[in-house]
């Protein structure tokens, strides 16, 4: 296959990944790496480099829209970014020592977990519990707009959330993904932020986390322009279109389709990883 033809296929595949990722809220980065390695037999390191770049593009590209809605908690974001960037730099340092077959298995497990979470409805939880004393000291508690006006919320489980964010950073660097699922888990489940606050703050953090490891990978030669350019442009275009048509879309069916794709890719990654074929 010529470089031009490969670029065309990668751009189309990435466009689909970005579109479905935005419509389902699962993010496009998750399927870019499996697509590149399983379908086009590209080395895992080049795939991770290209995928991280596309993750930054979608996060920064969507930032203005999220900010306008007024849900992002900047203090929570910055505080947790200390954990995710340290995690990302640690992950990037580790990446050179972990065999690609082990990374493929890890990737498969993360994909399966994501599929499992995506089929469960987001749980409602009370946001007016007494605050974690640490959250008071760090001034993490804030307010957000609801249909019934401005509501205050308090933050729980600060230490555990911080630790989970470190894990999210490590995974982001090792696998070239946004780790949005772990970030939302930490903020939604552990720190008990309102759902809209956790998803938008997560978007705020994904780009910063990915940029930390992308910088390191640039120096290691993981970022190949012939591969990164169609992937970045494809995912970005797909994600922007997805965000635009989100309002009228029937997301339940899309979610099922995307989840099926994720499960198939997960099994394939596990199989290839365990057989050592990647």
């Amino acid at each position: 296959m010529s470089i031009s033809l490969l670029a065309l296929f990668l751009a189309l595949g990435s466009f689909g990944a970005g579109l479905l990722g935005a419509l389902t809220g699962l993010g496009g980065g998750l399927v870019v790496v499996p697509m590149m390695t399983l379908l086009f037999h590209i080395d895992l390191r080049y795939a991770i480099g290209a995928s991280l770049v596309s993750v930054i593009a979608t996060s920064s590209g969507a930032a203005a829209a999220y900010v306008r809605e007024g849900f992002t908690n900047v203090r929570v974001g910055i505080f947790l970014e200390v954990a995710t960037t340290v995690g990302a730099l640690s992950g990037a340092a580790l990446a050179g020592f972990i065999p690609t077959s082990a990374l493929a298995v890890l990737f498969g497990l993360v994909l399966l977990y994501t599929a499992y979470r995506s089929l469960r409805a987001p749980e409602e939880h009370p946001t007016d519990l007494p605050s974690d004393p640490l959250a008071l000291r760090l001034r993490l508690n804030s307010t957000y707009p609801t249909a019934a006006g401005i509501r205050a919320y308090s933050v729980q489980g600060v230490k555990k959330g911080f630790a989970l964010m470190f894990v999210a950073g490590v995974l982001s660097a090792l696998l070239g993904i946004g780790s949005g699922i772990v970030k939302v888990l930490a903020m939604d489940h552990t720190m008990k932020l309102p759902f809209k606050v956790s998803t938008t703050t997560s978007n705020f953090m994904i780009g910063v986390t990915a940029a930390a490891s992308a910088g390191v990978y640039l120096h290691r030669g993981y970022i190949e322009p012939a591969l990164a350019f169609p992937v970045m442009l494809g995912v970005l275009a797909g994600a922007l279109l997805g965000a635009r048509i989100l309002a009228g879309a029937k997301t339940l069916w899309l979610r099922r389709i995307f989840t099926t794709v994720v499960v198939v890719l997960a099994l394939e990654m596990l199989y290839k990883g365990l057989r050592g074929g990647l």
Partner: protein
Amino acid sequence: MTAPGKQPPGTAVRDSRDEQVELVIGRLLQWGVLAAAIVVVIGGLLLLAQYGHLPANFRQFNGEDAALRSVGGIIGAALSGDSRAIVQLGLVLLIATPAARVALTLGAFIIQRDRLYMLTTTIVLALLLYGLIWGRA
């Protein structure tokens, strides 16, 4: 925007100034991504014109050319018209947008004289620049 009377202690009430700062940051990020994408498109088209007919072989990891691995090397090669370096320059711009966001957030905390978050934001910015400029983890 007014907040309801009853607030748990320690709640940072969002005010319109906060919101305006965030809005400006969000806009700047969008422009940053747009600028990066334009540079990548130009470099990408040149790259395809130059190397598009060659067989693609990325099965084996060989690492990128040394010149395309550092910010200085990329800028130098891009200015001399190397298509691969122009793509790489766009990607460096893209990687720098989150750093710009953190730097602007730092500016906002400085204006608010928020010492704790000035420190926290500086740590994040330092980690980001460390990765991008020195590239060792």
